[in-house]
């Protein structure tokens, strides 16, 4: 099989799951009306598959800041910070992230994906070890593979399993990076951070927590799981993204270890890519400010999460273990998931379809994400439609 034939084979496998004409992946969105509504084809749909947790995509403060940045600094930086320099916005955003997490150091990356790649490859290399949760995001897997470190997985959120593996590592734990996520992106469940920290303190190792989905969502000021659990000081490195609750694009790493700054000189995913554009940085800064004082948004978000989680649970759906902004209905087969997804779209509700191998344990997911801008009526409508469609799965 030559290279192109291999792609044809992969395309055939995909088509076997998804018949032609079903554009579940990369669906064309023609117009965006608000944080909760858009047009797909000729339908006005309710958006229930975005990561816009605080509903800030159209926040006037962010839009205004982005406009001003474009007017003042242009559309792009056209290069990496290492070679082409750091704009005042990049430096200010790093100071603001450090301040937000009460940390010494902070680095801004061009995407959250690169924040994980850049942080992991900067911290570990061949001969070192990474101990990661089995359900880690692809950016964590890819960062680990790129680093050349030995990759050991523990069963998802299973602390007995994690301890067994830590114990086995023996003295190698000194050069081991443990990685977990604040909220896991597929089932929406949270890492048992207190137990992870306890194991780290017993056995040793360095801890990295990806707060991609928990930033803005958990904790009094939205720091994430570190704040909800009061364990900020026990986590060595925190990564996250601007693409979810901050509604732009980019990523960050914060740490109290001053060595974080050395990553700027060794981390390829930081050095060999263009820095975020002025508009991106400006809207992110404005969004971070809204996020920090956005307790009312978090309160609304959690009302909405509980409302939908309870409705779907009562309707008999099998859901992830923790209520939260990611609410996944777990179904047995890809065909059932596809049918449910299509029927929801026919009822003008857009959610995410997750098929194996992306979903854990060979299952398929119809994954909803709730945000603070959804109204009570919108969530009620979604609950009604899901209830009516219950017999499909």
């Amino acid at each position, binding site marked *: 099989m030559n290279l192109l034939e291999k792609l044809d084979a992969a395309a055939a496998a995909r088509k076997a799951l998804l018949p032609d004409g079903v554009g579940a992946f990369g669906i064309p969105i023609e117009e965006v009306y608000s944080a909760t509504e858009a047009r797909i084809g000729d339908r006005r749909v309710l958006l229930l598959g975005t990561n816009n947790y605080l509903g800030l995509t159209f926040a006037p403060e962010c839009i205004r800041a982005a406009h001003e940045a474009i007017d003042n600094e242009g559309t792009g930086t056209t290069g990496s910070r290492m070679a082409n320099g750091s704009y005042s916005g990049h430096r200010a955003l790093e100071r603001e992230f450090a301040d937000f997490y009460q940390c010494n150091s902070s680095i801004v990356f061009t995407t959250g994906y690169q924040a994980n790649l850049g942080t992991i490859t900067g911290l570990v290399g061949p001969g070192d070890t990474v101990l990661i949760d*089995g359900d880690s995001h692809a950016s964590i897997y890819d960062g*680990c593979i790129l680093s*050349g470190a*030995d*990759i*050991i*997985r523990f*069963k998802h959120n299973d602390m007995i399993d994690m301890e067994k593996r830590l114990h*086995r590592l023996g003295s190698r734990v000194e050069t081991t990076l443990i990685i977990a996520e604040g909220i896991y992106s597929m089932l929406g469940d949270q890492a048992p951070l207190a137990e992870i920290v306890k194991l780290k303190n017993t056995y040793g190792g360095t801890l990295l927590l990806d707060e991609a989905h928990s930033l803005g969502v958990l904790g009094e000021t939205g720091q994430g799981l570190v704040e909800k659990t009061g364990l900020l000081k026990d986590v060595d490195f925190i990564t996250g993204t601007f693409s979810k609750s901050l509604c732009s694009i980019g990523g960050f790493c914060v740490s109290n270890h001053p060595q974080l700054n050395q990553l700027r000189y060794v981390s390829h995913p930081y050095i060999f890519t263009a820095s975020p554009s002025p508009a991106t940085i400006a809207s992110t800064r404005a969004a971070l400010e809204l996020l920090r004082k956005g307790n009312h948004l978090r309160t609304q978000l959690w009302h909405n999460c509980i409302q939908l989680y309870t409705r779907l649970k009562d309707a008999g759906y099998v859901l992830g273990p923790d209520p939260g902004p990611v609410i996944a209905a777990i179904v047995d087969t890809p065909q059932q998931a596809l049918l449910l997804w299509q029927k929801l779209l026919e009822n003008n509700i857009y959610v995410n379809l997750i098929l194996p191998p992306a979903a854990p344990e060979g299952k398929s997911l119809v994954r909803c994400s709730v945000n603070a801008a959804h109204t009570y009526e919108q969530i009620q409508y979604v609950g009604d439609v899901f209830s009516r469609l219950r017999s499909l799965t």
Partner: protein
Amino acid sequence: MTESNYNEITSLLCDRLSTLTNSNIEITPDTNLISQLSIDSIKLLNLIMEIEDTFDVSIPINALADVQTVRELADLVYKIKFAS
């Protein structure tokens, strides 16, 4: 010593794989994990966690790139367990 250790690993591995994969074909050192046992890449990763527990070793998943057959997996387990 080394040969009997190696043989022990191989036979325990065949046993465990047979249980873990629910396979109805006989598993020998030459069995190909991917094509004959229909283990996809994700299943292989989960299977490796069980194999780690069976032999009380850490098997880095990046060392699996060269593993196709049961024998190659046995070689890897042996190397990790008795190296050092």
